[in-house]
């Protein structure tokens, strides 16, 4: 066995730490709290998980159909204008399509971002603020979009 040990950096003796005064352990971020939080009765997390799967399937049809109509058929993107939108929203079918797409896409995206924030924002306060911002933006966009779809006036001046 070769006896030479080559150190990449080598252990540096720090004068401020010794046997009686050890350095703090290297803690993992957000480690498990000593007491397990009390179980909450409720199926919110399951409902959110199921909603992601089901809305995802519906959104594939809605969004791909939307993109096809908007960008490819009948001359593609150049045809889009006020008149084109007004024409489509004259039909209740497209109103429902767009309304459904708006709600599902916003809730789907918001729930996805919620899980990302829960997973990655380390401090409780950061999570609170990010989620507050997320929910505000989601509610605002959904309400505004719904208002526009229902009160759209093609003869607006």
């Amino acid at each position, binding site marked *: 066995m070769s006896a030479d040990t080559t150190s990449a950096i080598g252990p540096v*003796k720090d004068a401020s730490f010794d046997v009686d005064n050890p350095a703090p352990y290297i803690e993992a971020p957000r480690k498990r709290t000593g007491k397990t939080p009390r179980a909450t009765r409720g199926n919110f997390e399951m409902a959110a998980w199921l909603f992601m799967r089901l809305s995802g399937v519906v959104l594939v049809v809605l969004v791909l159909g939307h993109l096809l109509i908007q960008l490819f058929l009948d001359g593609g993107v150049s045809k889009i204008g006020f008149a084109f939108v007004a024409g489509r929203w004259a039909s209740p079918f497209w109103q429902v399509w767009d309304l459904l797409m708006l709600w599902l896409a916003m809730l789907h995206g918001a729930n996805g971002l919620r899980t990302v924030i829960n997973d990655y924002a380390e401090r409780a306060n950061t999570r609170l603020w990010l989620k507050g911002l997320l929910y505000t933006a989601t509610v605002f966009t959904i309400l505004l979009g719904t208002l526009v779809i229902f009160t759209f006036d093609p003869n607006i001046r």
Partner: protein
Amino acid sequence: MATPVLDKVEAESAASPYITVTFRIRRFNPEISDAVVWEDFQVSIDPKERVLDGLHKIKWDMDGTLTFRRSCAHGICGSDAMRINGKNRLACKTLIKDLNPEKPITVEPIKGLTVMKDLVVDMEPFFQAYRDVMPFLVTKGNEPTRERRQSAEDRERFDDTTKCILCAACTSSCPVFWNDGQYFGPAAIVNAHRFIFDSRDEAGEQRLEILNDKDGVWRCRTTFNCTDACPRGIEITKAIQEVKRALITRRF
């Protein structure tokens, strides 16, 4: 002038199986410094030996301060899970020849748990999550005078998850657990699965309720890190999905 005997000795030494391997180990000793350093050790070792043998050679012959856990050294006790070349494995089940010994072999403590010294981590949060899913048989009524009978098919249902040795290789390979230790983690869910699908057990509903919570199975992102890490070859991600399915189908 060489005698035949010497020739034989020389031929044997030329055919020596030993090669020199560099072990690059992540060291942390709170009694010396609060800083983490990577230390290199040149070890002459037979490539058919295991990483644990290399660690033993270092601890016994080169640097006695190297600290790591191991008990049985044969892949059953689950003490020596560590991050070898960036992957969670048992040091006692990883052969040098399977690791590309030309390059330095990096050895780190498993992630997501508090590092106490060198490769030793605080396993308490891991075992706390394990205890929280009630990993024991719960039944009602009088105890039978004989054993609790079970058909071979009923036993087969949860056979895979009985193999767990609680080494924490799966839980400490899970990116959700790295970022939020409050997540129960794959190992706890595997051990809940072992009792939820046991026909003799009667607390499956309770365990499902525990795992239905915010930090339960719904935090699983199916990255399959746990299945890749498991030294026992348990299909962990599949077990977690089976618990999810049981939660969804139990009432509808």
